[in-house]
């Protein structure tokens, strides 16, 4: 299967790292101190500056703004926002992380998922 090349280099070095356990498929260190958008199970969304993270994908966000979806909202990102200061977001309920500016492509992480 052809692998999709991402923007960054170092694709050969990633193959060695895949033998280790608990390797994240997404390197969050490049998002530190950047504003990101996070979506949660249950339909919540939040934006904030990423201050920290761990392998379980728990996130620490600063200056967090939380958005909620109304029944008639669908995806309006209403004015129903709240400012929370420093928050810890549970990795177990995170479904999407993306930079506030837009999306960027990453190399396909699912190529060698034979181990199950």
């Amino acid at each position, binding site marked *: 299967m052809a692998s999709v090349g991402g923007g960054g280099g170092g694709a050969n070095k990633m193959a060695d790292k895949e033998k280790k356990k608990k390797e994240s498929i997404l390197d969050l260190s490049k998002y530190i101190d950047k504003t990101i958008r996070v979506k*949660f*199970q*249950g339909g*919540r969304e*939040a934006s904030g500056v990423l201050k*920290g993270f761990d392998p379980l994908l728990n996130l*620490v966000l600063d200056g*967090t703004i*939380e958005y*909620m979806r109304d029944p008639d909202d669908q995806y309006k990102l209403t004015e129903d926002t709240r400012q*929370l200061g420093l*928050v*810890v*977001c*549970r990795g*177990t*309920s995170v479904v999407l992380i993306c930079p506030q500016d837009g999306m960027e492509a990453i190399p396909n992480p699912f190529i060698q998922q034979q181990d199950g």
Partner: protein
Amino acid sequence: LVDKCTGSRIHIVMKSDKEILGTLLGFDDFVNTVLEDVTEFEITPEGRRITKLDQILLNGNNITMV
């Protein structure tokens, strides 16, 4: 980071539209938390629920934000 908050008042947001304010007594690896002097809020109707004292154990499964 959460470890630094033990003993402080914290505000926990669940996956559903429910929030819990209380004093953090402790937590475990799964982020099940023990809280004291707890007030429970429903976000949308903006009504405060029961104020529960003593202590509660909150299941970390449904916690979204702390």
